[in-house]
């Protein structure tokens, strides 16, 4: 891009620009094609299907807004929304605190840092179906290791973890922490290690103790990662399916009827494709609105280092 002032330059440059654009489109074309076929097209189809009634046999018949009005008065839909939101409100903050805590520990000078990281990351790679089976067996009220332990220590019967409407969501949250805390911890750890030691040294000179340093340096500089975890945790909550399918089938008494599982039931067990499409579309809108709200809200508390370095807030 060095400046050469030749008369023919503009002509030459135009053609290379065009050529460059052509190559650009060529290289990104796999994604454009894939996005159109597997995301955009299906999204449009989903919108159409949500106004129809269809059991996969014959062709869809137009029913206008009937699916939507039915959805609004569908108690199970509201129950599924409630379950999903309650789970998310517990699971996401809890996950952030546990992972951040572990990362702060491992950011100290600790022996075998690599080993600890590997141990904590391990569950993330395990297949969710296998993990679900394992935790079902741990939570087994009569023969599981958890209630065996409670029996030995407290001398009384433990609760029926997955069969108790009050306990099923907390039980699933603990399992989710077991799975994902390690991954999120590594993310925080890489963030922590990116914080310049100079900031701490400077604040030490100003007389700040480590508690103050945590609140005024560490935490603000980690807010982009906390924000990232918030968003992915939110989306993971709306995607939760395997545990619901394998472990609880939505029970007991719909206390773990997660929204994706409800969608699956409607579409692939009861073949109400039109109704399930309306459900999916409403979810799409809900998640998009939530994402936008969280992004807006994040401006109030997420700091990017460029802003800090630039001196502006």
């Amino acid at each position, binding site marked *: 891009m060095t400046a050469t002032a030749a008369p023919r330059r503009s002509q030459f440059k135009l053609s290379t620009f065009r050529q460059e654009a052509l190559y650009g489109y060529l290289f990104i074309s796999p994604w454009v094609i894939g996005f159109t076929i597997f995301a955009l097209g299906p999204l449009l189809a989903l919108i159409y299907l949500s106004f129809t009634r269809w059991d996969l046999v014959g062709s869809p018949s137009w029913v206008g807004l009937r699916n939507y009005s039915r959805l609004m008065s569908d108690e199970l839909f509201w129950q599924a929304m409630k379950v999903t939101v309650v789970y998310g409100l517990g699971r996401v903050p809890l996950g952030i605190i546990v992972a951040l805590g572990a990362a702060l520990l491992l950011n100290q000078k600790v022996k075998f840092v690599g080993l600890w990281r590997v141990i904590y990351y391990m569950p993330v*790679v*395990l297949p969710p179906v296998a993990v679900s089976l394992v935790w079902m067996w741990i939570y087994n009220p009569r*023969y599981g290791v958890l209630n065996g332990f409670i029996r030995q220590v407290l001398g009384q019967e433990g609760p029926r973890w997955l069969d108790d409407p009050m306990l099923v969501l907390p039980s699933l949250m603990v399992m989710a922490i077991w799975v994902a805390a390690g*991954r999120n911890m590594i993310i925080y750890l*890489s963030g922590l290690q990116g914080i310049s030691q100079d900031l701490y040294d400077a604040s030490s000179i100003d007389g700040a103790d480590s508690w103050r340093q945590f609140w005024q340096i560490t935490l603000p500089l980690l807010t982009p990662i906390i924000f990232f975890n918030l968003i992915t945790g939110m989306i993971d909550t709306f995607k939760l399916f395997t545990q619901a399918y394998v472990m609880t089938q939505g029970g007991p008494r719909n206390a773990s009827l997660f929204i*994706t599982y409800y*969608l699956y039931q409607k579409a692939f067990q009861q073949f109400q494709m039109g109704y399930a499409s309306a459900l999916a579309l409403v979810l799409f809108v809900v998640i998009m609105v939530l994402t936008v709200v969280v992004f807006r809200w994040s401006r109030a508390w997420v700091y990017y280092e460029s802003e800090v370095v630039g001196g502006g807030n």
Partner: protein
Amino acid sequence: MADSSTTISQTPAAQVSYVSARHPGFKYIITRALIYLILISGALFIFIPLAWTLSTSLKTEAQTLAYPPTWIPNPIQWRNYPDALTARPFDRYYMNTFIITILSVIGQVLSSSLVAYGFARFRFPGRNLLFMVVLSTLMIPFHLLIIPRFILFRYLGWLDTLLPLIVPNFFGGAFSIFLMRQYFQTIPLELDEAAKIDGANPWQTFWQILLPLAKPALGAVAVFEFMEAWQDFLGPLIYLSSDRNYTVSVGLAAFRNDYFTAWHLYMAAAAVAMVVPLIVFFLAQRYFISGVALTGSGGSKG
């Protein structure tokens, strides 16, 4: 922290007493002990479920129902493994899962690096807008499109084949594209320009210069996609209907529905299902960690 560590190295532990409670060394030891205590508790929290799996997988059925639960199987029943793995055609399930996973990884690595190269190195109208769309597919849960996708694959006649689980990966994935683009941007542009002066076309530059330099990022994309494909459950559950096409996950779930009390067999099957990803993880852990460091996102795909 640095100050106290130099102090402690000169202070024999025996001299630390209640009198010297204000001594930085005392505080240091307590902090250290607490840190290791918490670290070990965390590790136990990770290991107990795995140990319980292993323990159960070697018990007799009668022993799984022992009251209270025991940790050491007696006798050790190795037979559970062959029994579990032949109770359903797990050999087929593993073969299918390997085929899906390997082809998905190849597709994802090739297509995503091509697309990422396009976004990283060429200017064209609409580039930023299109890249925003890529990022938005990370944020929006496109799994909600399972219904129209199911219908699309039904229309194509791909249901109950492995194609719906493989082919989409040849069109790039948002997370992989994002990760590769980030990496390409760390490679100096001068290399491309030098290659251009030497007469290389963009394809040659990509294939011979950038791709070999991007091995750490390619490794990260490959391991994340491996896990994604190996762990997938909803996709295979919906698209596959005959037993011979099942993946390990769907087979495992079906196996559980066969009986209800054969916990020793489920745990044996679950243990085997866990071993393959664990081996991959141990062999490739530096790619996981570097992928996390590259993107700050740890492979959480949208």
